[in-house]
């Protein structure tokens, strides 16, 4: 029997390059590494600078503002800056650039010492503009792999997603297939062009598509047509159609919006042709295929999480950031909206971010130790499933608990708290488009009130009309959310095997992945929904999200000394790395 993997031993003194640290998953991974594996050699955090903020300043702001780091601030106090400086080096770079956009000398220094590259950066919008999805999820992956391949002996962890499986049903195994496309896999035939999926050819095709859209919308004819439409629109609104400054301003905005829409649409259409639900999963899957075809000798593992959601306990219970998959759905289930079109028995494959990060660290350690499997799926549907029906029931119960105790008025405390969400079929009469029809009809009727009505009544009807318009707009948003999240709650009844991850026995129980440890009821009601309420709902409501304010803000040294920023703690490891690098010469 294989000895359990000791994460501490495997990663002690090891040097890791990490991309995507500013994301939800990335922050938790970094805090977990610093908290649970403090003996790690050096973590190189690749971060892109912003317009008025260099990468180091951005990192400092992230560490100081984000509650994810609050535990570390409290644990180390004034010494946290030093603690960080000894372990973390911020590397200015950009995954969309060749060589990750890292200065060549710095890149060379990192590569000499690198043991592991964890590539977590990604475009997580489900349907970004096609070129953005390609730049980050595909080209970014290639750049990261090229970077790792230049190191003498670095492993590469590609953070992907379970949903690269695409529109397939049934149990999805932990396997990586070259040139994979769901339609090829499922039907056994070839689509959409009659040829089998070839990732290199598809990549060229997508680049061509982007160029084509760009050329089409920037052609003289298209611009002239748009200018004409804008002028007519202005005239229809009673403005001067010869106001060129106004036309140019609107034209610029309209052109940008149309270009973006087209780039989103062509990506969505192409993804759908091959059998992926969105551009995100399409480009992520292409990234996997590219790694298999272009980097056969690179030591690598694909880490595929399912739907990453609030932390169960680390860095703090309920910690969340941004809008993750369940956020908008949970939010709407807490409003007067009740009927969610979905499949009640479909697994809602949620995994808490801390479970996911612990498993990601374990997968990285396994790779460093040469024990990693080709693919690790970090999901719950196979061993401890939560169905969409149960998820909605728990959501209702969580809202109930909140409104009963914190409802602003009697309506919230008594009525809204008992306004439970329900899973319904697509054909339910209370579906969103029917509700929208009612709202639109009401708005129209109120707008066209007969002139003979008393002034007071007309004023009331005007109010009703604008209220109905607002309701319609909100329902439109709900409709969009439901459509976006359809693959997760309605289509594709999938279960993702996580046998490899569960089978990865670790000496430290903290890092062992076992979804059965999760108590769904307690997690959903006590951690997840309150976490969303605190960290995500403000984003939907357009209010401010809480910002952490440490007693001792982190200040990193301006320039780190060549090597390891003067850290004596890792000097021996440094020397060993340097010797190995000299001996092994160039990388793959």
């Amino acid at each position, binding site marked *: 029997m294989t000895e359990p993997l000791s994460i501490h031993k495997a990663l002690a003194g090891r040097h890791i390059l990490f991309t995507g640290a500013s994301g939800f998953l990335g922050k938790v991974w970094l805090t977990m590494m610093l908290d649970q594996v403090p003996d790690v050699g050096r973590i190189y955090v690749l971060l892109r600078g912003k317009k008025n903020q260099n990468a180091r300043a951005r990192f400092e702001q992230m560490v100081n503002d984000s509650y994810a780091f609050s535990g570390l601030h409290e644990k180390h106090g004034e010494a946290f800056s030093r603690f960080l400086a000894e372990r973390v080096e911020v590397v200015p770079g950009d995954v969309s650039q060749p060589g990750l956009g890292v200065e060549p000398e710095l890149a060379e220094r990192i590569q000499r010492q690198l043991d592991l590259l964890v590539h977590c950066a990604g475009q997580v919008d489900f349907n970004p503009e096609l070129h953005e999805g390609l730049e980050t999820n595909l080209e970014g992956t290639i750049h990261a792999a090229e970077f790792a391949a230049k190191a003498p002996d670095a492993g590469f962890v590609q953070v992907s997603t379970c949903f690269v499986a695409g529109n397939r049903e049934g149990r999805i195994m932990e396997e990586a297939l070259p040139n994979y496309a769901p339609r090829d896999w499922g039907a056994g035939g070839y689509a959409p062009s009659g040829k089998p999926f070839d990732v290199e050819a598809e990549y060229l095709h997508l680049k061509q598509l982007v160029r084509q859209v760009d050329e089409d919308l920037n052609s003289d004819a298209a611009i002239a047509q748009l200018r004409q439409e804008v002028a007519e629109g202005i005239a229809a609104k009673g403005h001067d159609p010869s106001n060129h400054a106004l036309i140019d301003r609107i034209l610029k905005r309209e052109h940008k919006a149309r270009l973006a829409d087209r780039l989103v649409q062509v990506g969505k259409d192409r993804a759908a042709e091959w059998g992926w639900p969105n551009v995100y999963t399409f480009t992520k899957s292409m990234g996997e295929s590219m790694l298999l075809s272009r980097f056969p000798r690179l030591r690598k593992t694909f880490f595929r999480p399912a739907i990453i959601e609030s932390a169960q306990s680390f860095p703090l219970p309920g910690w969340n950031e941004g809008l993750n998959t369940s956020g908008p759905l949970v939010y709407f289930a807490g409003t007067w909206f009740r009927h969610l079109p979905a499949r009640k028995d479909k697994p809602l494959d949620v995994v808490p971010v801390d479970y996911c990060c612990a498993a990601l660290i374990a997968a990285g350690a396994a790779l460093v130790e040469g024990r990693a499997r080709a693919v690790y799926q970090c999901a719950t549907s196979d061993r401890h499933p939560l169905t969409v029906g*149960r998820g909605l*029931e*728990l959501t*209702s*119960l969580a809202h*109930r*608990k909140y409104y*009963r105790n914190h409802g602003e008025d009697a309506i919230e405390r008594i009525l809204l708290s*008992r306004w*439970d969400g*329900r899973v319904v079929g697509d054909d339910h009469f209370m579906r969103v488009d029917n509700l929208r029809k009612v709202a639109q009809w009401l708005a129209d009727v109120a707008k066209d009130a007969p002139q003979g009505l008393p002034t007071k009544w007309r004023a009331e009807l005007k109010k009703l009309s604008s209220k109905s318009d607002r309701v319609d707009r909100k329902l439109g948003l709900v409709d969009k959310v439901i459509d976006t999240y359809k693959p997760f709650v309605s289509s594709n009844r999938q279960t993702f095997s996580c046998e490899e991850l569960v089978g990865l026995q670790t000496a430290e129980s903290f890092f062992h992945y076992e979804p059965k440890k999760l108590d*769904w*009821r307690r997690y959903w*009601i006590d951690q997840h929904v309150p976490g969303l309420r605190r960290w995500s709902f403000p984003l939907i409501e357009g209010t401010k999200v809480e910002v952490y304010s440490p007693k001792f803000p982190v200040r990193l040294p301006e320039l780190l000394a060549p090597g390891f920023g003067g850290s004596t703690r890792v000097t021996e490891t440094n020397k060993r790395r340097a010797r190995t690098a000299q001996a092994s010469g160039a990388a793959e």
Partner: protein
Amino acid sequence: MPTIKNTIEPKSIGSATDPKGNVLAVDPERASRSCAFFRVEGTLIDRGALAASAYFASNAQGFTERAFRIGALALGAPLYGLLSQSDRTLATRAAYAALRHMSEDRVGELADEYYEDVLKERIYERGRELVKQAKRDKHRVVLVSESIEQVVSRLAAELSADDYVCNRLEYVRGEATGKLLDPVVGGHDGGAFVKRYAAEHAIDLTRSVGYAAYGADLLLLSSVGRPCAVNPDFALRAAARDAEWPVLEYR
């Protein structure tokens, strides 16, 4: 083949838990050779299975479902009243049938609410005193209740009881079937339970105390050396008078 959770053991004894579900450690000092058995309903609280079931039914998922369940309970209430006198086990079973198709999650949450909002403030002060007195007298405190485990565990924690026995709902795929798992607590089998419990824990029943309120608990009280009728119903009052058992009234 449906999976049935919470398959009850022949001895349906649970350990007291705190609100988070952690099992409370039993103080070995207190685990003496005598017990104080409390039939919860009537001696410690004034709410029985029907009240609990009504609370759950009125908070089922969806308004139609609530109306239907409450209606069914209202229609069955007179029957429950009649059955309580003749066959309390059947009455308890009938009361919890209203929870059919309710999710285990909802039952758990509503149990917490029911305990916090309804039961907690209805625990008789004299009842609390009796429990404290039993502890001072070094009795092991055991609660016997017709209510469901999610509710009784909270009460046991509140009163620092050493053990409890109560009813458990049957769940299939996370939904209540509306059935109670055997043996159903609340009927005439209280005496059998007390004897079994005494045998398993080396309890001297002649030194043990019993508090109960209903005629159905006659055998429970008859099993202990020091029975006491508390707020007794008609049947128990008559029996207590005949047997010259002490009677406490504090309702």
